């Protein structure tokens, strides 16, 4: 039993690890190919199977006039928009989540759970349809094709996630902690900032990570709501899809675009390892 279980355990983990890594490895080797080595059938090992070329990577920094996409500025735009929108969503979302977790709201038949669901339900609407009203809305307030406009829209995308995770998290933080803080002379704001927040860092990390991920990977709104001034990374990368699908540069860009988030993964893992991610308080 024990041995078999152990074998199965490592087998499954290894299997999944291979499954996770496989497309990345494929992307890595493909990123060094060119039109001819792609279209000759599947090949794997550079120098042995095919002559490696750097074209796929060069495309990412060349100017469009030279057949590249120049992702450097969009890269920083994406980082900026994602981080700012995540930050604002976390701040607003955390406050709202705290209110929903701790206090009772009632307006007619609407109660706490309904408000929470209202937040979360913002993610149900297919983005296609919201894109047009958002376009008109941002047009009306003159924020189309601007970083701020995108941040505004991303707040709508991200705040529900922040609220959902933080409500869940605060529900696990005993409310007696805030009560004790109040009794010890803190007003509700002080209780929140001095006591609840410092004990919610793991929750904030997870919520922050989800916000960053969902902001970073959005394509649709970034595509519809920008023109020339602001370009985000996914939009720029997708613009590599010309009549010929350039497997090589898309592979390179897939690797480049996932890179900053791997750092996020390490940060999250650090907090996981500390073992107190969602239950800092017994």
């Amino acid at each position: 039993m024990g041995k078999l279980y152990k074998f199965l355990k490592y087998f499954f983990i290894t299997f999944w690890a291979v499954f996770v890594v496989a497309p990345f490895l494929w992307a890595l080797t493909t990123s060094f190919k060119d039109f001819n080595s792609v279209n000759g059938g599947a090949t794997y090992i550079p120098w042995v199977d095919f002559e490696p070329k750097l074209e796929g990577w060069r495309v990412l920094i060349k100017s469009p006039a030279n057949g590249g996409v120049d992702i450097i500025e969009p890269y920083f735009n994406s980082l900026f928009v994602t981080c700012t929108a995540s930050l604002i969503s976390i701040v607003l979302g955390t406050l709202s989540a705290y209110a929903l977790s701790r206090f009772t709201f009632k307006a007619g038949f609407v109660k706490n759970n309904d408000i929470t669901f209202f937040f979360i339900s913002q993610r149900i609407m297919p983005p296609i349809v919201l894109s047009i009203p958002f376009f008109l809305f941002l047009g009306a307030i003159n924020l189309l094709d601007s970083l701020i406009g995108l941040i505004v829209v991303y707040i709508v995308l991200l705040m529900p996630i922040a609220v959902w995770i933080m409500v869940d998290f605060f529900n696990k933080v005993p409310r007696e902690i805030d009560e004790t803080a109040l009794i010890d002379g803190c007003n509700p704001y002080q209780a929140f900032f001095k006591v609840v927040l410092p004990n919610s860092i793991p929750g904030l990390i997870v919520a922050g990570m989800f916000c960053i991920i969902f902001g970073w990977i959005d394509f649709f709104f970034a595509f519809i709501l920008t023109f020339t001034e602001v370009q985000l990374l996914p939009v720029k990368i997708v613009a590599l899809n010309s009549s010929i699908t350039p497997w090589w540069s898309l592979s390179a860009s897939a690797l480049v675009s996932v890179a900053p988030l791997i750092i996020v993964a390490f940060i999250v893992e650090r907090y996981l390892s500390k073992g107190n991610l969602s239950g800092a308080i017994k």
Partner: protein
Amino acid sequence: MKIIKTCLTAVISSVLMFSPMAYADKWGDQFPHIKATGDIAGDCSYEEMSKKNYKGKTLKINTHAVPVIGQPTALHAEQFAKLTGAKVDVTHTPAGDLYAKAMVPFKAGQAPYDIVFGFSNFINDWKRYLAPVPKKYMNSTEMKDVTKSHIGVSSWDGTMYQYPVDGDRHYLKYRKDVIDNPEMQKKYKADTGKELRVPRTWKEYGEMAKYFNGWDWDGDGEKEYGSAEVMKKDDLMFAAFFSRSVAYAKNPRTPGGFFFDLDTMKPNINNPGFVEALGDWVEATKYVPPGGINFGLGDEIGSFGGGQTLFSFSWDDAFIAAMQDDSPIKNKVGAAPLPGADRVWNRTSNSWENQYNQAPYIVWGWAVGVAKKSKVKDMAFDYLCFFSNGANHQADLAIGNFGVNPFKNSDFDPNIYINTMGWDADIANSYTKTLLDMEKSKNRVFPLRVPGVFEFTSAVATGTSKALAGQLSPQEALDEVAKEWEAIVQRVGKKAVQDAYAVGVKMEDNKL
């Protein structure tokens, strides 16, 4: 006054003609792109553009992804900026999204882009938002060189809304090293009793493709297949279907509409001609490479251009890809008109006519317009005119992945391809002859350019892909499409569709 101007232009041009090297030095040095020819005189030449001053102005362009069309757009933007002092911002968008990317702001009453790239069949939806090409440019030396059919595709009932910068058509590409190979011909004859030659009909195309499917006939160690075509249910799929349908359904003796009966606006799409073509296409799923029914244009180009298939038919790209310097099959491919059919449907008499029929499909191609609300229209048209000036156009033609294809009368000179691109003479000849014949043909089909065109083509893609997937029989699939088309006509308004379609039919029936 006008006469004097014309004379003057003529004199200047002739002077320039005699001293091309002087210009080549000056501009060719500065702009390596046109090194081969130097500047070529014209109203929008480098020389002329350098006299303009657009300092402080910004031109915004949305174009296709890099490199096809997208790269020349960016390159010429850079050159234009250098020459005129303008600031030019270019964004790149995948083909499928070009329509929405421009249409959303159009509908919202905005013009974030001065210049929008798109396709010739967008014209009906876009023309309200586009500025007609001004007279000045209509009369430019550059425009004078554009072929009649491309003027037609760019115009709506005589008014040009889209600036011609590229030529597009579907034609047949085949592997010369097989079809023209005597050994293969012998072998094919022995096995099938038929001649191996450039297919004249879709049936021949199918037979040959099937014969050459699934074995290594060029000895490179990989299996080869019959045909690569766009079968993926996407925005281009309908074009492949229409290319296969024209032979059966475009009857020169029944004018008055290919897609609809112009009088009644009843769809023709489910008549036996189309059904026959769809039947052929379903058959074709047996001789495409593995995964072939999920091929988009990119896959088709990769597949044929990479030497995987015997045949392909659609835009130039696959052919040009195959003829690139580093291509394993350079100078092993040939171009020919689309196959025809041994019989053609007559929808007036409701019967087949057993007569050879062939018709080119002047397909959907790149088109570009200037937004009506743009504040820098002059600069925008100057840019477009500059984009396709003689020097730029010739240089662009020579670069395969630029996706700029012949659309000027001067482009059909095989020497361009032999000298600058290193093509074999017979290939260059077959290429230019194929294209030129299409220009001359009197029995041709223009793209559907009616309001709501995307609803129509999307219905075709859905219906035909159901047939390709085996969900429906060809007849059922096209009946479904016809029903959908009728509903769309109803929704859009019969009159509106009819009026718009009449313009296209007029061109098809050679009345425009």
